[in-house]
């Protein structure tokens, strides 16, 4: 009996031991963790953390995941750390991790394409091609290019089309900006009668085509056809219509803005005239975005809509780009007091394209030229299109401007470029008031300069012996009508169209109704902060000009 009890006890004890061992096995827990030892066709060998090796059959409905992504058995390799779930003695789920850098995208891996709606120093809001508006941020490391050329971010305008690149998937800091080149610019504003609309090819047939020049419609051609883009909506008197209904408006007048599409015109946006045309060249006094209306200085109220063609800085912009105090040429449609704006061409120009730019134009006497500094005495600063005078009674009031090897200096009197060393060593600034013998002996006096700066750093300077009378000067903006001509009598001359002069009394850009000819013989011409020669000006460029009647003094290519 005792023997039997002993045998039973031993059996129980043995069975207990087995039970104890099984409690920690994966088959009991239903999970297994460890490293892959070997992978074969329908089996996988896993070494648990404690060193136990298990050869596991795969369940028919097994699911594999690596980094949360569905994977295959072939993706699992010996050495990988795994977690598995078992169904019975078969593995029915296996997961592992492989990615070291989670959420990584390569540099420039995220792209946003759209139209710049707003620029506010380091914030750029864009209307995306894929829909929606987003605000992104620039940093000092942001690279800016236009037509593959590295440029300053301050060259960016509202209405520019941009490609923004990001280095991280969840960042709003732009690593690189590509700005659309010349093709973004509006080439012309047309008016014509609709003759035919070919919706199969998106081409509009037109009669009596006219172009807007100097505030007047000028004849272009009797019959023509132009392809049109359908991305932007088509409106008539505030009502949106489908492009395929354009054919029902044959005989009606249509206004169009065209861009250059590889050497030929393409209509970017159009609006059909509903009733009678009125035109205004005036200051926009107030804008009410809630009521979609604005008031001109002459108290005329005009309604806006999504179809209104709004142009600013030569680019198509959204209605929220209209700022109060903008000067504009407006083509309105309607009768009596009930007017809709068909075209708003804002013609304000400024030295800076947005508040990113900190460029200034100075004019003054070169009191002192040091190796890296210039001091201006009795200088003028161009602010809001007007020269502001700064009298310097004391030496400490003189304007200190810095320069470096990248400065561009042009001697207008001798018609030559000079290098910084010559500028420093030359007689451009002398001790006039200190009764310097050298100055007296050589009859030297301080020279004067027009200076284009980036903050307090001089980008370009032109120097001349005699000071111009700034009060005679006029600030003008316009578009190059034809490439400049090197005339045998007058030297380099330029013809401009759509010219506006700044009126100090009215504080408004006043539109001229004729073209303007201008001499570029003694002119500082600046493009992208660099001095350029007159022959580099080309047709269609927008210019900001300081001129003394026929003589151009400073020309800024916008």
């Amino acid at each position: 009996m005792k023997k039997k009890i002993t045998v039973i006890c031993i059996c129980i004890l043995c069975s207990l031991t087995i039970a104890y061992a099984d409690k920690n096995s994966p088959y009991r827990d239903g999970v297994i963790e460890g490293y892959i030892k070997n992978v074969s066709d329908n089996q996988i060998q896993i070494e648990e953390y404690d060193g136990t090796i298990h050869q596991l059959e795969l369940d028919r409905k097994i699911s594999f995941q690596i980094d949360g992504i569905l994977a295959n058995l072939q993706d699992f390799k010996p050495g990988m750390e795994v977690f598995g779930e078992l169904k019975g003695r078969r593995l029915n789920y296996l997961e592992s991790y492989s990615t070291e850098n989670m959420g990584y995208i390569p540099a420039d891996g995220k792209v946003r394409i759209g139209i710049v709606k707003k620029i506010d120093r380091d914030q750029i809001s864009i209307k995306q091609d894929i829909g929606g508006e987003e605000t992104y941020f620039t940093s000092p490391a942001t690279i800016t290019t236009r037509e593959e050329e590295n440029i300053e971010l301050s060259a960016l305008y509202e209405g520019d089309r941009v490609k923004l690149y990001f280095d991280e998937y969840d960042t709003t800091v732009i690593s690189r900006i590509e700005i659309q080149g010349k093709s973004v610019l509006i080439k012309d504003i047309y008016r014509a009668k609709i003759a035919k609309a070919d919706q199969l090819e998106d081409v509009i047939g037109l009669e009596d085509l006219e172009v807007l020049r100097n505030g007047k419609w000028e004849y272009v051609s009797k019959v023509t056809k132009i392809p049109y883009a359908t991305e932007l909506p088509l409106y008539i008197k505030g009502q949106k219509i489908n492009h395929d209904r354009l054919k029902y408006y044959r005989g009606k007048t249509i206004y169009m803005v065209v861009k250059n599409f590889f050497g030929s015109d393409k209509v970017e946006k159009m609006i059909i005239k509903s009733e009678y045309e009125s035109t205004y060249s005036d200051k926009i006094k107030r804008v009410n975005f809630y009521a979609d209306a604005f008031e001109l200085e002459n108290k005329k109220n005009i309604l806006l809509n999504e179809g209104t063609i709004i142009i600013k800085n030569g680019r198509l912009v959204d209605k929220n780009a209209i700022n109060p105090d903008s000067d504009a040429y407006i083509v309105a449609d309607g009768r009596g007091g009930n007017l809709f704006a068909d075209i708003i061409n804002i013609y304000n120009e400024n030295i800076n394209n947005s508040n990113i730019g900190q460029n200034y134009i100075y004019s003054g006497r070169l009191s002192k030229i040091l190796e890296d500094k210039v001091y201006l005495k009795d200088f003028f600063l161009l602010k809001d299109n007007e020269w502001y005078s700064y009298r310097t009674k004391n030496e400490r009031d003189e304007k200190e401007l810095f320069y470096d090897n990248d400065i561009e200096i042009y001697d207008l009197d001798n018609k030559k470029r000079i290098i910084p060393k010559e500028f420093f060593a030359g007689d451009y600034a002398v001790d006039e008031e200190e009764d310097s013998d050298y100055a007296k002996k050589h009859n030297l006096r301080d020279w004067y300069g027009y200076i284009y700066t980036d903050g307090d750093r001089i980008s370009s300077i032109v120097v001349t012996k005699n000071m111009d009378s700034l009060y005679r000067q006029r600030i003008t903006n316009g578009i190059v009508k034809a490439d400049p001509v090197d005339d045998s009598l007058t030297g380099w001359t330029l013809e401009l169209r759509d010219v506006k002069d700044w009126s100090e009394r009215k504080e408004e850009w006043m539109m001229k109704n004729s073209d303007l000819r201008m001499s570029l013989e003694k002119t500082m011409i600046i493009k992208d902060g660099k001095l350029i020669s007159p022959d580099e000006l080309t047709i269609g460029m927008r210019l900001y000009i300081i001129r003394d009647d026929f003589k151009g003094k400073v020309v800024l290519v916008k």
Partner: protein
Amino acid sequence: MKKIITILMIIAMLTPTTIWATPPVFSGGVNNEYQYEEIVFLTGEPIKFVGTIDVSEKEKETEKTTSYKFKLTSEDKSLDAKLDRTITLVTEYTKRDDKGQTIGQTAIDKYKETLKIGKDKYELEDYQLSKSEITDNRPASDFYSGNLKGRKYYQVNKDEGEIIIDISGSDAGYKNFWGTTDTRTLHYDITSKKEKSSWHGTVEIQTSDSQTKSLRYSNNEANLSSFNGGHIRVTESGMVSRYDYNLPDKDDDELNDRKRNKGRMELKQTMVPKLERLILPKFKDVEGHWAGNAIKKLYSLDVFDEQSQFFTPNIPITRIEFTKAVIKACNIRTSLEEPKKRRGKKEPEEVSLFKDVNAKDDSYKYIKDAVNKKIISGTSDDVFEPTEPLTRAQAITILIRALGFESKAPTSGYYMNFSDDNKIPNWARDSIYVAKEIGLIQGNSQNTVNPNKILTRAEASSMLVSFLEFLEKDLQKDYRENIINF
């Protein structure tokens, strides 16, 4: 005699047809059916030439021979200038079916070029070119990118000087049923060594050849008709080119290398559009429906083979219906539709991949191809559940896999700013991320993407039409305007 005519007719039929897939040779020229034009810089001045181009193509399994023949004269008739050029390019393809990729190596086989301007004659003495491109063959579209290097040596009046043009460039393009675009960027470094004068110049050329198909609706002009209007598939093709040059300027009729003539010239040619009328949709329940236009478009394209007069837009779409729709919408030729190579021998009977889909079923070829192309998978190894509905996440995944874009998502472990991000299944996360990036989907007003919501037939139609518009327009814009204009 009859025999000779027959042989001649056969030869004429076998003569390769003109192709317009990529910009011709590497000169930035553009053409339509009738005329070819390009800018030539050999004299140090940009001169526009116009004339004709004949393109012939012979294609073997792994090799393509393309021959171009140009006969051009100066557009400016006051200039006595003539350009004759014959070039044959040979491209060898290495297909990597295991990766779904193809590598193409292009080299010059034959060349002859003579330019006569007045008394001067420029002859192409040597032309070296190496071009290599990689094509990623995805189910809905092929995407490719390539690079090239080359050099041309010209002799001026036999022994009066030499002009060397170093060429470098790159290609980017795509090709699918709905469109094809090839945008090529070229850079010329021109060195002219003549006895009297030498000069240097550079030219940047961007040229794009594009074809796109779009659906247009045309009203029926007559009232007393059985239908109000229908869709037309319009195929438009065109080439554009832009030259930015920096050349020596003229000084007293002589080229002065210190003075520069910088400028831009642009060319454009379009073909006459090709029109195809499509079948008329006549559903009773889609007029006025928010997705009505999308449904009608897809029906016109034969994407839905609905026989009933009711489309029932608000019921769930099934897995098989959506799979078939994607394959048909992209015009992906299924393997079972491809011509059989062996004739006469009895093919072994097809065994279905899934036990719930009969291999003889009309829909089976779509399922088989979609599975083989990894656009969709069964719910388990041998079950497809063809009549089960599918979720938005599943539909989006199918579309993104068809494009092969899922690899553009970040490495795993990222979040999206949808408020229901936590509901996105792991397997669909990459596809939903990419779909949002390319504008195929957007969050709704609550910023949710509703990944697990069952997709209705109307929602599926709208999603498919957005997908087609991506293939039609967005790709063209990205490969043409977004490259050339920036």
